[in-house]
């Protein structure tokens, strides 16, 4: 059983509003997977189902083979969970919170926690509620790392963090996950951050899964071609290879999994005259927007 997470036929509605229907995905052991999607496509819904805080209308998610609606304490101890906004028991101070959590986990490894705390430069008796967002994120991360779980679920870890802390968080996390062969399932609304962190991506929108693959493969196969049309009435939306097409007057941004030659052949075959044809190099964020559209 190589899949740490397995979600089958997930369907959920809020009232009459559909969030997703028949969503299927799995996360294999050792991978760092980013769940990407625009707002309202069900990222947090998915995370809530994974953590057993939401009962889907139908379908199920398994973590380590257990239905997430009834996770056993043993399985829960194998999952590190970072709540959106790095929520922790803010009425505790650093020392208290370490003392609290350490008792719950037999594999508790305090070293990574104190290592992160030493970078913070706050007294150990300072209440978490009085800390900055960035400091709190380090506390939350440190606790998860010390828990030494096999699976880390991070809900929007970049929320409220300034770039420095984001970088610190990502680098520390990735190094740790790779060194210890941990599985990570994460979302973030800042796609840029994901590029440094994740190996695999899962892109969803309201219709379902748009892509589940490794980041490298995705970036290799997903292309953007820019060109200018002579006749700006020319329509190529129906071409089978078009994933997304952005047209401003006669300037076209074309997103496709197909190669340059296929696109050019199509233009020729359909007698569409185009100039300044060029492949544009993309970062993950561009590709994400290209795939899901700007709106």
């Amino acid at each position, binding site marked *: 059983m190589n899949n740490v997470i397995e979600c089958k036929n997930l369907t959920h509605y809020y009232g009459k509003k559909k969030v997703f229907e028949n969503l299927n995905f799995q996360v294999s052991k050792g991978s760092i997977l980013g769940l990407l999607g625009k707002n309202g496509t069900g990222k947090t819904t998915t995370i809530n189902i994974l953590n057993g805080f939401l009962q889907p209308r139908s379908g199920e998610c398994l973590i380590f083979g257990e239905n997430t609606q009834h996770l056993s304490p043993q399985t829960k101890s194998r*999952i590190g969970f970072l709540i959106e906004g790095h929520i922790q028991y803010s009425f505790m101070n650093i020392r208290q919170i370490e*003392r609290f959590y350490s008792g719950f986990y037999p594999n508790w490894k305090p070293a990574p926690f104190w290592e992160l705390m030493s970078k913070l430069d706050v007294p150990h008796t300072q209440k978490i509620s009085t800390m900055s967002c960035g400091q709190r994120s380090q506390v939350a991360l440190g606790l998860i790392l010390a828990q030494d779980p096999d699976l880390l679920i991070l809900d929007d870890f970049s929320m409220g963090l300034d770039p420095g802390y984001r970088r610190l968080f990502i680098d520390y996390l990735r190094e740790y996950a790779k060194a210890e062969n941990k599985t990570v399932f994460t979302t973030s609304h800042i796609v840029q951050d994901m590029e440094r962190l994740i190996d695999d991506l899962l892109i969803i929108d309201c219709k379902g899964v748009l892509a589940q693959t490794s980041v490298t493969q995705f970036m290799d196969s997903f292309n953007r071609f820019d060109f200018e049309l002579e006749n700006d009435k020319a329509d190529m939306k129906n071409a089978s290879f078009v994933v997304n097409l952005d047209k401003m007057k006669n300037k076209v941004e074309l997103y496709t999994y197909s190669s340059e030659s296929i696109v050019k052949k199509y233009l020729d075959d359909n007698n569409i005259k185009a100039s300044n044809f060029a492949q544009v190099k993309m970062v993950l964020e561009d590709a994400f927007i290209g795939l899901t559209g700007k709106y």
Partner: protein
Amino acid sequence: MMWKLVVYKEWLKIRWFLVGYTLLGILGVGYLLLTVKHDFAFSGGKNIWNSILFLGNQFFSPLKYVSLAGGLIIAIAQYFPETVNKRIKLSFHLPLGENKVLLMMHTFGAVSLLLSFVIIFGLFSGFCLIYFPVQMVIYSLITILPWVLAGFSAYFLGALIILEPHWMFRFYYSLVGGFFLTIFFVPAVTSAYSPANSGLFVLTAILSIALLFSAYRFRKGEM
């Protein structure tokens, strides 16, 4: 030993509220007993006794809502922080059964409340025994008991209401809970509650697991 850790967390949340409440309660009882002492000195013991025995004087009536307030304070101190940013998720994610965590938290809260009541009303009874014979103190305690039970009921109902994820249902629960609590405070002569107290005790015990219901709704994603 995980219950010790849960107790530790709950203690950090409620300690100042609990200590503050208990101290206020002690001060209240102290004030009450000062008035009794004063009345004894000025009106004479026999007149005080007579007024309590035959004229309906309930000298302990200032204690009427003390325990109700205690139950609400502890419920808020303990459960309100859990609802801020849905922090209760952290507790549910602990390697324990969800209901088990809740019941540990709840037991701790209820025991804390009990200790506080024991201190406050123990002090009251102790001082009363100086001024009044045992029967009169027992009659007073029979009258006070429903108020104390109301304190526990308020704590249990408070948890139910605070943990409920849907504001509309919070309102409904408050309505039912508010009306329910009135049955503990029906104006009556001293010790009139003696046939009802056991029933009220059972009802209070029934409410002790009420919070599991709203917590379950939270866990199932009711919004």
